[in-house]
């Protein structure tokens, strides 16, 4: 048996806790069987293997300052993620990673930060938010703009409410479809950008959500004068290997797995202009 670390061979992690977030979304808390810490950068992802079922690329949604627990927030949309949803504490999963590029939280020091996200897109941004808040004095204004389909689909609701209660950060939440007891905003996320309070020429924007939402968000940011290379987007593509071997995640000349998933918009703007690239 080969002991050298093959990048295609998973490491074993044990489920410590599973937390139901929404009807179809849950968070797994894992620890390495080796008890090693799992350092990662905000925005990076892992390949999670469910015994005999398959492997899926999932962003890390935990706090990078707490590498002893590996946190993943997952929406059940396919056979593997449905299987993961029925995990119990004590179960073992395979983990390969962390892979990919990170949100530019260091380069953005001194800047205003605008976080624009929709649906499950908040999960890969949460590590960045933890980092920004833990180092609050290093940044200018911090704005979080979040959209969900309905009030029942608002992810990390308690945390959003907690962040919103702070005086040093502004949080706006909107829903596509309201219900009778919703008195918050209704509409799509990009519409919030116009009214948000930040200095465009000194702003770094971090965006993660459906591609259509990211496209309109970039447009709205550009209209306000945010520089193209200060806008970062996290892309999603099919992935089988996460290390640039399988070819599935190509987006023009970029491999989303190893060149991304977080890209400066200037690096992949053509991907937003060309259909089926």
């Amino acid at each position, binding site marked *: 048996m080969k002991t050298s670390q093959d990048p*295609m*061979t998973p490491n074993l992690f044990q489920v410590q806790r599973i937390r139901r977030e929404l009807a179809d979304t849950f968070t797994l808390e894992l620890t390495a069987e080796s008890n090693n810490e799992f350092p990662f950068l905000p925005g990076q992802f892992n390949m999670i293997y469910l*015994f005999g079922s398959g492997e899926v690329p999932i962003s890390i949604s935990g706090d990078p300052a707490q590498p002893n627990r590996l946190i993943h927030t997952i929406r059940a949309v396919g056979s593997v993620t449905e299987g993961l949803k029925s995990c119990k504490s004590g179960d*073992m999963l395979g983990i390969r990673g962390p892979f990919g590029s990170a949100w530019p939280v260091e380069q953005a020091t001194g800047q205003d930060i605008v976080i624009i996200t929709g649906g499950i897109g908040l999960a890969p941004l949460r590590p960045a938010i933890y980092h920004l808040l833990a180092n609050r004095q290093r940044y200018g204004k911090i704005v979080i703009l979040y959209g969900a389909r309905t009030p029942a689909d608002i992810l990390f609701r308690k945390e959003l409410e907690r962040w919103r209660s702070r005086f040093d950060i502004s949080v706006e939440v909107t829903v596509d479809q309201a219900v009778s007891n919703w008195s918050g905003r209704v509409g799509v996320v990009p519409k919030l950008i116009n009214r948000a309070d930040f200095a465009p020429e000194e702003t770094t924007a971090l965006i993660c959500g459906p591609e259509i939402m990211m496209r309109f968000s970039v447009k709205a940011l550009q209209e306000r004068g945010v520089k193209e290379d200060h806008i970062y987007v996290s892309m999603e593509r099919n992935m089988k290997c996460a290390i640039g*071997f*399988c070819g*599935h995640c190509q987006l023009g000349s970029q491999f989303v797995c190893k060149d991304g998933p977080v890209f400066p918009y200037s690096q992949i703007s053509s991907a937003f202009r060309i259909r089926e*690239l």
Partner: protein
Amino acid sequence: MGKTSGGRAILPAQSLQTLIDVVHSQGYRLIGPTLEDNAIVYDDLENVENLPLGISDRQSPGNYRLEDDPSAGYFAHVVGPHSWKRFLFPAAQKLWSATRVDQGFSIQTPEDETKLAFIGVRACEIKALQMQDRVFSQGPFTDNGYGEKRQNCLIIAVNCSRAADTCFCSSMDAGPRVTEGFDLALTELQQGRHDFLIETGSANGEALLKELVTRKAEDQDFAEADAQLAATEASIQRRMPSNIPEVLERHLQDEHWQTIESRCLNCSNCTLVCPTCFCSTVEDTTDLTGQHAERWRYWDSCFNTDFSYIHGGSIRQSGAARYRQWITHKLSYWHKQFGTSGCTGCGRCITWCPVGIDITEEAATFCEIDKRS
């Protein structure tokens, strides 16, 4: 393995078996061209009679035929449907297996210590191996299986004595002369005789040559070899325009993609015969007991709709988008990803396309479109 390292000799063709024997005696699994199902494929060679002596091939878009040719030597054929990637990056490969234990499962990775030797490797195929090296062993991650096999691989190359109608290696700077990346290079000489001019390209090759009974190579041997290669090169009809990487990127939304789509069957033959295409998928399985699981890697193709599937649907729904992905990856994006083209000019994709779509013709069309725009 580097450039020609100096050793040169003549091996009479009737002694070719001794070369095969020496390679076997060093513990290699020797693979070379052999006849099967009316095609020349790469498979295990036991002895010299497995080589396709006296057989030549005729190739054109969508067409491959073998013919008996009493004057044809052992390596008179040109590349067939196989490429060497099938041995270093197998079409189906078990990556690991896992077994349930009390608290979860344990993972075992298979070991394969077979040393491979390839005979009959063309210049374009050496180039292809080097292109796959860049993908699998020269990036931030190394594919363990590929890297080890490739490192220990013995390459006995062959200079092409003729070109197929579909060849265009000369315009890809990939042949027909073997210049580097080999242990031994053979040139089959048949003017009034049947000999091999052997050149060495590595210390391994030098050592092999010493095991053989050869005679000194003379000026006339080199002259004959050079003239043969020059004639091969002169006979190459097809070419790839040198500005194609930029041209394709300038016309990603041209309507000519739809014209190609109307012909393309999306069968994925071109990607499977391509010696550099490296895309793969993985499959996770369990047995009926649920106690044992395996992960297999299989060749995949960007022509499959599922290839680009993410939750909600596939990104590349149309055949036009999938053909565009293949050709722009090969000819344009590869340069940005790996610092080289992904095409060697071997012509396999032209021959094995059931409807005869010709990559050089499509490239030329885009160059015309570019000139007009």
